[in-house]
């Protein structure tokens, strides 16, 4: 599957018109110097030879080659940029859960009351929100007007990086929260009416313990599964948000690489994203497996 992603990216990119050498040298460079650079970068090799070199590089060094533009190893570039992106993803997931769980609990407990209806509107609003637009509004409101957070970038003083990630993570999580609230709410409703909950209640187990130890635990499973399904969407959203907030993570690396036709970097980032999706999905599966005794038996 990962192989499929890489191959698709390799050929897709080469279908795209545009010459990396031209992008590096600019519009007024002479054809001679462009040709020289093309041959220096190996772009004049036949496509299959390029694919061969690429494959060798991936399997022997775990690298998709040297960046055409930056002239450094793609692996190095990605490893350097990945932490901030992964932090952003992690924080966004955290926010989503922190926002979604209480909302869903409140809505489920007050089923069909006003609160429930209000909460149920959230998914409908959230689905149609362009992430970049939400980001813009958050910047205007919380950074420019209220000055609570930096407008973008990643600061360098100890607390800055975290503060800088708050608004971007919020933008991403606002897109992710709606489906979470929706599924969690309906799961909770089912669990609330389940026999074992009635039994627990009848046994005078404190309501709080029922909620946290039994109900949430059961409702958490489908939520985790849903997160797994949305991992790729989540990473995609993160890449766009990085642009809006001027964060130099994988997203900005990828977008500049796409527009510069920096093939090795685009391939590398796509490979990394695909691997991340696989790894995160596996981790979530493992979590579900641990949490769900039924899964362990079968």
């Amino acid at each position, binding site marked *: 599957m990962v192989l499929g992603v890489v191959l698709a990216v390799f050929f897709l990119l080469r279908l795209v018109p545009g010459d990396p050498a031209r992008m590096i040298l600019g519009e007024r460079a002479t054809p001679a110097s462009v040709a020289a650079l093309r041959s220096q970068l190996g772009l004049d090799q036949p496509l299959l030879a390029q694919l061969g070199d690429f494959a060798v590089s991936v399997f022997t060094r775990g690298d998709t080659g040297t*960046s055409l533009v930056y002239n*450094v190893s793609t692996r190095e*570039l990605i490893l350097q940029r990945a932490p901030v992106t992964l932090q952003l993803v992690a924080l966004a997931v955290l926010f989503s859960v922190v926002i979604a769980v209480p909302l869903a609990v409140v809505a489920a407990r007050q089923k069909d009351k006003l609160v429930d209806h209000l909460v149920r509107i959230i998914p409908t609003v959230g689905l149609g929100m362009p992430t970049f637009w939400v980001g813009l509004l958050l910047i205007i409101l919380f950074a420019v007007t209220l000055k609570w957070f930096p407008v973008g970038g990643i600061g360098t003083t100890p607390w800055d990086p975290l503060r800088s990630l708050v608004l971007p993570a919020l933008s991403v999580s606002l897109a992710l929260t709606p489906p979470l609230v929706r599924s969690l709410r309906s799961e909770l409703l089912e669990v609330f009416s389940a026999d074992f909950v009635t039994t627990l209640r009848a046994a005078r187990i404190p309501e709080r313990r029922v909620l946290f130890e039994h109900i949430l635990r059961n409702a958490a499973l489908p939520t985790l599964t849903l997160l797994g399904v949305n991992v790729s969407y989540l990473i995609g959203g993160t890449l766009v948000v990085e642009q809006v907030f001027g964060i130099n993570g994988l997203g900005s690396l990828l977008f500049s690489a796409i527009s510069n036709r920096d093939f090795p970097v685009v391939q590398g980032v796509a490979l990394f994203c695909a691997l991340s999706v696989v790894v995160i999905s596996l981790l979530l599966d493992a979590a579900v497996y641990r949490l769900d005794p039924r899964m362990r038996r079968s």
Partner: protein
Amino acid sequence: MTDPRPLRPRRALTVAALAVAGLIVLSACSTGTASTGTTADAEPTAGGTITLGRVASVTSFDLNNEITANNAFAIDKVFEPLVAFDADGQIIPWLASEWTISEDGLTYAFTLRDGVTFSDGTELTPADVVFSLERHLAVGGPLPLDAPIGSIVADGDAGVTITLTEAYTPFLAELSGFQNGIFPADFQGKSETDFFADPIGTGPFVVSEWDPAGDLTFAANENYWESGQPYIDTLVYKLIADDTQLTQQLKAGQINAIDEVNSADVESLKSSADITVETVGSWEIEQMFMNTTNTYFGDRNVRRAIAMSLDRDGITQATTFGTAEVANSLIPPTIASSANDEGYALDFDVDAAKAELAKSAYPDGFTATLLIASGNSLRAQEAQIIQESLSKIGITIEIESIDIAAFRARFFAYDFDAMLNSGQSDYPDPDALVSFQADPAGFSKSYWTSYENPDVTALLDEGRTTADGADRDAIYLEIQKILAEDVPYIPLFYPSTLKATSSTVHDLTVLPNGSIRFQDAWISE
């Protein structure tokens, strides 16, 4: 040294230059500094960091192989050429303190400035100059030395003599480019790759931390030849790929300066008390290019009709918010021999445009495509105005907006009807723009328009060899006149170099090529 014709500096520039005239001690020849300084009386204070936000990272210091601004404006902090230009585009002495040009224009004898050392403390010698320029000749690169150079010879302890095979008036201007900076002979024994990874030059700054895909940190060169300079300790080039972010981060005080200001943002930046916006005339010119091999655009009457149907004032005002100057000729007023005030351009007149189109082979109009690069909202706006304007004379324009790499691929293949793009002079000589945009023998075939006019070709050959003066002026005025009548491209406006800084930053020298001289800059508080 020849005597470059006095330019018509813009009023703002003159005022700024006067304000700092008594303040900065430069060598006798280097005058004319545009400056952001609002505190004319203040003494520069040493120390501090300036963080400049830029939309692209610095990817290479190999000056002979680079052309793009993101690299050029970092290279020129480290490497310096023999001669330079000031904020008005005048050629000034730099590593060479003086020079003589022989009567026939073939021999240039330079004398190196006293006491110049590289950042590692080794002394600058004529051998370094010979090595550097010869390496550039060997490499060629995207900005090759076009001058017909015969020989480059070291002459004693401080002399370098360059002999041309024929007269080439733009030579000094060409030498002033960043790509002709001087580096140590033999790269101090290192490989080229190693040397440019940790470059050593005579410039005011040295590279201290560098992520080719991210930020670059410069430290002041302790051995800089202008004593006391640079004032600041550290200069950071911070990569912020998004325009809006650039502006917002400057406003929020997260950075001190931004390299490229969107004209739309100028008003809101100026309204902010802690921000200074510097507007300096550039060597750039925004144009609509027409492919003369195209059926319709090959018709001179069609091109003239289009020129007359465009309200260039309106376009300039609506798209640049008063930051740019309406263009009437190919050569901007920041470069000698500009015909901007000569009244050659075809004026906006819809009726005359219709009459002109009636004389063409396509009196009833036609449909054509206007190619633009996506992600550039300025061009998108211009394109829409042009589209609307041409519809008034019966020409239907379809706008095709494609990403920059695809855009370049298209026009390099001459595969376009008309496009919006900008011309840019690399050095302050009229020949640069004219050669690139009107020479059918050049690789770009008159900026991919395939425009060819034997009169123009003859004139531009003559201009290259005629010494600076009234005769040379006349040649370029004549070229601009013919171009204004044939209109292979319509000059729209001359964009300004726009820089914004927080008001604690003083005395930035903004150059007309878009670069900034930071050795004069200082930071208060």
